[in-house]
């Protein structure tokens, strides 16, 4: 893996929070033996996994599929010292993004594969877009910018 690249490891554990915590523990054990652990972010839909990863000194990012109580979410994430939140693109909006930013949290998107959706997401200045087809998306966005110029 080239240096400088962030590696996001998404803990998957179906609906089992205890399994999610054990997976985060196993990740922390593996990463404790690696000199490049600092570039790893532990992602998960499981708050338990992210919390566990952070307790091991790893960077954590919660993936969210709902935007209930943005201020409470931001406060919880900041209190836990999460690096940030991965927000599905359809949830991106000013109140949520502002709450996360005001709490000092990084904001990335869930999967975005279409240029029009990416442009809407970029209006919220996320730290990164996540895509199944990043290079084609980058080319399409560059083309749209040229056409709009």
């Amino acid at each position, binding site marked *: 893996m080239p240096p400088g690249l962030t590696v996001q490891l998404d*803990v998957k*554990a179906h609906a089992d929070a205890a399994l999610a915590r054990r997976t985060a523990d196993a990740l922390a054990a593996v990463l404790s033996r690696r000199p490049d652990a600092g570039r790893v972010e532990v992602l998960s839909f499981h708050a338990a996994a992210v919390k566990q990863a952070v307790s091991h000194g790893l960077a954590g990012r919660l993936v969210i599929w709902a935007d209930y109580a943005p201020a409470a979410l931001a406060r919880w994430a900041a209190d836990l010292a999460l690096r940030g939140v991965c927000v599905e693109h359809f949830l991106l909006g000013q109140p949520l993004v502002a709450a996360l930013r005001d709490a000092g949290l990084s904001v990335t998107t869930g*999967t975005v594969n279409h240029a029009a959706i990416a442009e809407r997401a970029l209006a919220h200045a996320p730290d990164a*877009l996540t*895509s*199944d*087809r990043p290079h084609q998306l980058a080319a399409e966005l560059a083309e749209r*910018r040229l056409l709009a110029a």
Partner: protein
Amino acid sequence: METPLIAHRCGRAYGPDSSRRALRAALAGGPLRGVETDVCLTRDGALVCLHDPYLALGTTLTGWAHERSAADVLAGRLLDGEGRATAE
């Protein structure tokens, strides 16, 4: 302005989810901010890169990743987008 991009599932448009093929193509295709993949715990405490802990969704195996040993999981094969077994 360069858009900061993360390759999801190692770049699943370029190969099976979280596969070496997808990763190689994503890394070769241009600048990236990062790569995302998924990790599941096996019965014997190993970590495997798999999007779906329910193995039938992305591999030639059945059951759940946490119910199988790492050796069992590694003996399976990833499925491609059409559900065919791959070499990985």
